[in-house]
């Protein structure tokens, strides 16, 4: 199929938002559009936005599910602040999402759904399609449901089954609008429904009908062209953050020559890591679903004691439950990776919404002087490298490592240039020296890193006992000696501090010195980089230091901060990293941009804040 006749408009980027009932298949529609666009060479970022309820009552605001994607011929780092195109399958979806459509943007609605009880359920007194409230947008009233029914006459499906295909009709419209060949999705349909001819036929016909409808109908005046992006050559694939974490851990285990033990308890938005890992039992992955969060971390500690790369993952409330276990790993000086896929808190909070408010619990959330290495992944694909490095640092420094991800990274996808994993750094097991004295002293340390040696059960002559009570330096017997406790607390702190010698220096993007340094960490990278890049191009004196290593901080952190007049710390919490930096490096002029709305930063709100500092 090819688009014909109508005017073509070239764009360098566009943001499309698909919204409907959580049963309407919006995630599938969005991801199909994403995959197709990626194969055409566009750069891409996505944001699924779904309710915590699996199926909230149909047609209500609570049940609205959305998928936003930005595609471009330029570098794309975020799913976009505002949508250029909003596809709304019902009144509730429109009402909940109109705020995300830019003024003058293109709005496509399923007009069949805008009637009596559906309007009422969405909270509309009057039909918004008729009352002039949408005059500021370019509105296409598409009879999506009725045309889907019409197109699928004679297909061997119930009316309900036929109506379910309306998301494919909508996708057909958008494919035409952006001049994308639906071929890839047709193949996908054939594969997905290979056991059901009627479903293949229905979805295929609906997609084609939508495409031809858009081509024909006068309401869509032009189609848009987005050229391929100039991206580095290589083999690409899509990857979501949780999948990348799973694979990064597997890569680390493979390099270490260990099985991977993953102890976990289901929790949104971390569960997909468990799901992904359980698929790979054939590759030495022991994914263990424990009876609770505490057992999850404890089973991992047991596996670490037994000599495996051991990992647990959760989200905020589960991390709170794991605190005691993490403290044991600190005390026992065992390697352990704890993945925290942050969600909005406190307590159960907003399970499906993103936030960065677990930094404090990662840095400090254990009893006693209990240091841990803390890393934060910055993009869905970078979760792979972050997970690999978390495992490497845990193993080589014999201490727990907390890897912070978030709901936005977990579910967001981006195209990923598949790395050459052979060139990733080695992971060296802290095995006791061959000539180590026996009886083995479990708190004997590598003099350079201060990591103790990892003697594992099954090794003859190295039998030893460890535990959560304070240990005598070197020998490891229980010790209540005051000066020994002081020494051990200091040693554990120094061991973690020395990790700064083994991590990369902090880099700065854009201006290397000047007026404003934007500081961020974790999943806000895309928004911050876009804002800083755009302002630098506009001549502003602004740089970005985006931290991946949060404890210890890179050795040159002080130097980086001192090169700028103003430090603007941007984070999706009430200022946790800002307070941390201020306490360590108090002599700088700090400013903050904080947001706790369960949503990522919009590029424009970051730019506005930077401009205030540049010209305020």
């Amino acid at each position, binding site marked *: 199929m090819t688009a014909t006749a109508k005017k073509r408009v070239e764009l360098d980027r566009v943001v499309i938002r698909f919204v409907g009932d959580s049963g309407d298949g919006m995630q599938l529609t969005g991801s199909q559009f994403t*995959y197709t666009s*990626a*194969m055409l*060479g566009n750069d891409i970022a996505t944001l699924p936005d779904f309710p915590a309820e699996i199926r909230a009552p149909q047609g209500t605001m609570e049940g609205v599910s959305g998928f936003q994607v930005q595609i471009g011929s330029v570098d794309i780092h975020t799913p976009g602040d505002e949508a250029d195109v909003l596809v709304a399958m019902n009144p509730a979806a429109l009402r909940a999402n109109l705020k995300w459509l830019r003024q003058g943007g293109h709005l496509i609605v399923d007009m069949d759904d805008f009637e009596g009880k559906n309007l009422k359920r969405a909270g509309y007194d009057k039909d918004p399609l008729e009352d002039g409230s949408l005059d500021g947008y370019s509105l296409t009233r598409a009879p999506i449901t009725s045309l889907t029914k019409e197109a699928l006459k004679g297909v061997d499906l119930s009316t309900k089954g036929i109506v379910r295909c309306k998301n494919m009709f909508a996708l057909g419209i958008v494919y035409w609008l952006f001049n994308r060949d639906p071929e890839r999705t047709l193949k996908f349909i054939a594969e997905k429904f290979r056991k059901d001819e009627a479903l293949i036929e229905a979805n295929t016909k609906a997609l084609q009908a939508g495409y031809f409808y858009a081509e024909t109908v006068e309401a869509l005046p032009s189609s848009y062209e987005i050229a391929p992006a100039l991206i*580095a*050559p*290589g*083999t*690409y*694939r*899509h990857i979501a953050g949780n999948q990348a974490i799973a*694979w990064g851990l*597997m*890569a680390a285990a*493979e390099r270490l020559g260990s099985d991977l*033990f993953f*102890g976990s308890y289901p929790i949104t938005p971390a569960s997909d890591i468990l799901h992904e890992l359980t698929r*790979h*039992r*054939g*590759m*030495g992955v*022991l994914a*263990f679903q*424990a*009876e*609770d969060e*505490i*057992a999850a971390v*404890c*089973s*991992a*500690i*047991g*596996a670490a*004691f*037994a*000599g*495996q790369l*051991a990992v647990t993952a959760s989200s905020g409330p589960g991390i709170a439950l794991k605190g*005691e*276990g993490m*403290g*044991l790993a600190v005390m026992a000086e065992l390697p352990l990776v704890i993945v925290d896929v942050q969600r909005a808190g406190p307590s159960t909070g907003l399970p499906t919404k993103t936030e960065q408010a677990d930094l404090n619990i990662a840095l400090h959330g254990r009893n006693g002087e209990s240091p841990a290495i803390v890393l934060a992944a910055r993009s869905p694909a970078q979760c792979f490298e972050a997970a690999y490095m978390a495992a490497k640092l845990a193993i080589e420094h014999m201490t727990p490592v907390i890897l912070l991800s978030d709901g936005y990274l977990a579910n967001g996808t981006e195209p990923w240039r*598949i*790395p050459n*994993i052979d060139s990733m750094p080695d992971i060296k097991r802290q095995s006791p020296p061959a000539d180590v004295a026996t*009886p083995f002293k479990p708190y004997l340390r590598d003099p350079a890193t201060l990591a103790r040696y990892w003697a*594992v*059960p*099954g*090794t*003859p002559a*190295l*039998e030893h*006992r*460890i*535990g*959560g*009570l304070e240990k005598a330096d070197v020998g490891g017997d229980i010790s209540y000696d005051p000066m020994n406790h002081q020494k051990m607390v200091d040693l554990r702190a120094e061991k973690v501090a020395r990790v700064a010698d083994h991590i990369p220096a902090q880099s700065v993007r854009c201006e290397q010195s000047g007026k404003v340094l934007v500081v961020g960490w974790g999943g806000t990278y895309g928004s911050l980089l876009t804002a800083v890049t755009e302002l630098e191009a506009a001549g502003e004196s602004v740089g970005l230091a985006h931290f991946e290593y949060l404890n210890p901080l890179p050795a040159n952190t002080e130097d980086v901060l001192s090169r700028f007049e103003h430090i603007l710390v941007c984070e999706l919490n009430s200022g946790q990293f800002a307070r941390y930096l201020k306490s360590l490096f108090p002599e700088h002029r700090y400013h903050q941009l904080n947001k706790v709305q369960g949503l990522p930063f919009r590029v424009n709100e970051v730019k506005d804040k930077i401009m205030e500092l540049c010209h305020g």
Partner: protein
Amino acid sequence: MGEQAVKVSEAKLTKDDFASDQTVRWCPGCGDYAILSAMQKALPEMGIAKEDLVFISGIGCAARFPYYLSTYGFHTIHGRGPAIATGVKLANPALSVWEIQGDGDALAIGGNHFIHALRRNVDINILLFNNEIYGLTKGQYSPTSQQGLITTSTPLGSIERPFSAGEVALGSQATFFARTIDTNPKLMSSIFIEAEQHRGTSLVEVLQNCIIYNDKTHSLITAKENRDDFQLHLEHGKPMLFGAGNSKGLRLNGLKLEVVTLGENGVTEDDILVHDALEPDPTLHQMLVRMRPPEFPMALGVVRAVKARTYDEGLAAQLAEGQSRAKIKSVKELLFSGETWEVS
């Protein structure tokens, strides 16, 4: 033990080989000394290489146990021992994994881990030292304390109903449950060996005396004058006889157990129940573990030892099947699997 498991010790080890260099620091007269000694005696007989033995514990007096053995040991956190032991065993199925708990550790703070370890049937051995009191924290009532017990936290007497460890275990689908007592070293050693031989989670309840906070709590069954009447030593395939000269026995009366005397009312040995530890149906095992003096004798010995697939066997089978089926053999292949595209 699993088939992959546990290489046999080459040198014949002795009890002394299993003592660590640590001074044992339980209160003088504590029942734990006898348990430790029985374990050190049993270990050489199991014939397991010392480096393949791992003792895990949580918190409490009992939890100091691993420090006093010269094997690998890990003294962890309160109640979490079964979860940690599970991780050890899954990570290295060739190890013989032991987990030491007290009644508070296993049945209060760690209740969830305890029941789920039993339900999963991971091939580990749990020793539950039951003294019906919190010792290390100075004498509060525990989930197995008898109703009315006056303790530091129940000055007017405990109002809670106690757990029976055996009932909890069988309700959790335990495949092995045995009960022994700290005054009987021979029984302890032999039960530890049987626990080790059982595949799956073996739970051994050791009735143990806390000389400081709950002294003589088990005296009804340990006192010389009661011992015969209040201890039933179960043996698989043998009639459930007890009392002086095996003069008494248990039989079923309707759905209830009753104590009968041989020779009275025409009762002969043929009327007495024969113990079947291998019976998968736990009904009778439940009745046996619930028995308490003075109405009934306390059942000691191996109550239940049934065959069932262990979690680790199931996992090993899935790993092997996964391996034989896997089209993707390395992470590199994984990264290039599925949909990819070239940018040049």
